[in-house]
């Protein structure tokens, strides 16, 4: 391998030089996640911050440990493990025992990311798989939602007698209960996973990322638009469907992962539509109330095929038997 100079690329001018690198991009993502973390701390209390810090520490530690054991150069400086940790923390309920969160971090970093070769080689978003493994493996603790007096009255009304566990809006919709108002949904005064509750804060982060050109709007916009259109088709309230559950978090921060999403704009639009379609199909027809993570995982797996279908003409192989002279 050593003789191959893959880093020496010969191309014609002009050569564009950008200051962006992995660490700067990941730093921007972390900054964009701060508003949602702030809302989470406001709604759920300080435990939310503790959980976020723990997940980041576990992810960075596992990344460091695995790279050391595998005798590869260390990559914790690129902050990608910290981003995975924070996004995973956003995907779990605030009261989840810390050791279960550590199991999720292990699956995300060690199994999904490093065993496949580290950043850039993972076939799926590490945080998504970490969340799904926890969701299936620890079904009870992963669906025990904290409530407190900061939340919407509608949430408090359906709380159990001991008044410590409540339901998410999507669960309440499935059970046919009175729902929180759309404004409460948008601001995030509801129960749910740590970072998914506030659509407003997540949108703020998303706008920051788009302005900084860290992500392209293609995936979030097509994802959210598909969810809204399908809500209307199924006769549901589109604002509610957009603000409930993990749609905002998934569309802005998880579906846009560079490694696991298509590279062309048309591919990204197909990817976003697919995510929205599967999310709504799972919400409406499946036994789980929420399907964002499954939808994104499924589209992650389809990404290589989308890339092949949407490849620019110039990069496509010549048609069989008709090579140009």
């Amino acid at each position, binding site marked *: 391998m050593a003789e191959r100079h*893959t880093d020496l690329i010969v191309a014609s001018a002009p050569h564009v030089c950008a200051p962006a690198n992995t660490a700067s991009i990941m730093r921007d993502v972390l900054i964009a996640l701060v508003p949602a973390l702030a809302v989470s701390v406001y709604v759920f209390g300080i435990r939310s911050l503790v959980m976020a810090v723990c997940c980041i520490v576990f992810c960075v530690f596992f990344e460091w440990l695995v790279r050391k054991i595998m005798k590869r150069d260390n990559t914790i400086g690129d902050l990608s493990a910290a981003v995975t940790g924070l996004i995973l923390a956003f995907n779990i309920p605030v009261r989840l025992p810390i050791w279960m969160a550590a*199991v999720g971090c292990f699956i995300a970093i060690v199994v999904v990311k490093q065993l496949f070769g580290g950043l850039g080689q993972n076939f799926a978003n590490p945080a998504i798989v970490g969340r799904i493994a926890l969701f299936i493996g*620890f079904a009870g*603790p992963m669906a025990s939602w904290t409530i407190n007096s900061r939340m919407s009255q509608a949430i408090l009304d359906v709380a159990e007698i001991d008044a410590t566990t409540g339901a998410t809006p999507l669960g309440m919709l499935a059970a046919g209960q009175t729902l929180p108002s759309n404004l409460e949904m948008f601001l995030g005064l509801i129960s749910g996973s740590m970072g998914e509750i506030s659509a407003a804060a997540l949108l703020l982060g998303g706008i920051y990322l788009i302005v900084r050109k860290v992500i392209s709007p293609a995936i979030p916009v097509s994802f959210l638009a598909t969810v809204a259109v399908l809500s209307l088709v199924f006769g549901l309230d589109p604002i509610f469907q957009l603000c409930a559950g993990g749609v905002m978090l998934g569309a802005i921060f998880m579906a846009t992962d560079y490694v696991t999403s298509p590279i062309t704009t048309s591919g990204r639009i197909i990817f976003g539509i697919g995510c929205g379609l599967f999310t709504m199909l799972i919400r409406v027809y499946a036994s789980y109330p929420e399907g964002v993570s499954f939808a994104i995982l499924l589209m992650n797996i389809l990404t*290589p095929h989308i890339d092949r279908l949407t490849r620019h003409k110039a990069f496509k192989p010549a048609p069989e038997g008709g090579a140009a002279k």
Partner: protein
Amino acid sequence: MKKTKLQILTNGIIRENPVLVLVLGTCPTLAISTQAINGLGMGVSVLVVLTCSNIMISALKRIIPDTVRIPCYIVVIASFVTMVQLALKAYLPSLDKALGVYIPLIVVNCIILGRAEAFAGKNSVIDSALDGIGMGIGYTLTATVMACIRELLGSGTIFGHAVTAGTITPFTIMVMAPGGFFIFGCLIALVNKLTKGKVKEKQQNKCLGCPGAALCSHVQEGGAEE
């Protein structure tokens, strides 16, 4: 190079472990290894069938016409599977119930047909018996170890005895299909590590078998140069 009797016996345990190195009979192994007792029961059933069918096929190898050998092997294997199944039904009905369809499916288990084709059809009766016992032990060990790990992590018990159950919430995904594949992969990695340098390089065309080859810029024919 002629192998000694001991080598034939021990071949199947690690070096040519039917599940982890030859990657045969994966489906029943993944399906039944949710509880240690099932893994052990399935392993012993396969051990018995494999040994008996190896002996029988080796003894009959001059009588069986080459063109219809596969159906003949299947008939021999199916007879032994039926015996094992009836014995289980009579003496261990709960195990029979737990293993369900996977006992009759031993008939089409690749390990048994594979050893009949690759070994018993060409070697003496005693060698075939030793090969069957060795491969059977390899299979039993794999299924049992895999099932122990999955049962411990997924239910908190080993052979039904509580280890961590009640104190730690079990990670139930381990007794489901994804956990099975995960432990399977970990064990293959472990065996590759243990047999480092002894097992032949299996993949000659490293890149060409990869589904991502069409998209990959590093793709090259004939495998990566090292």
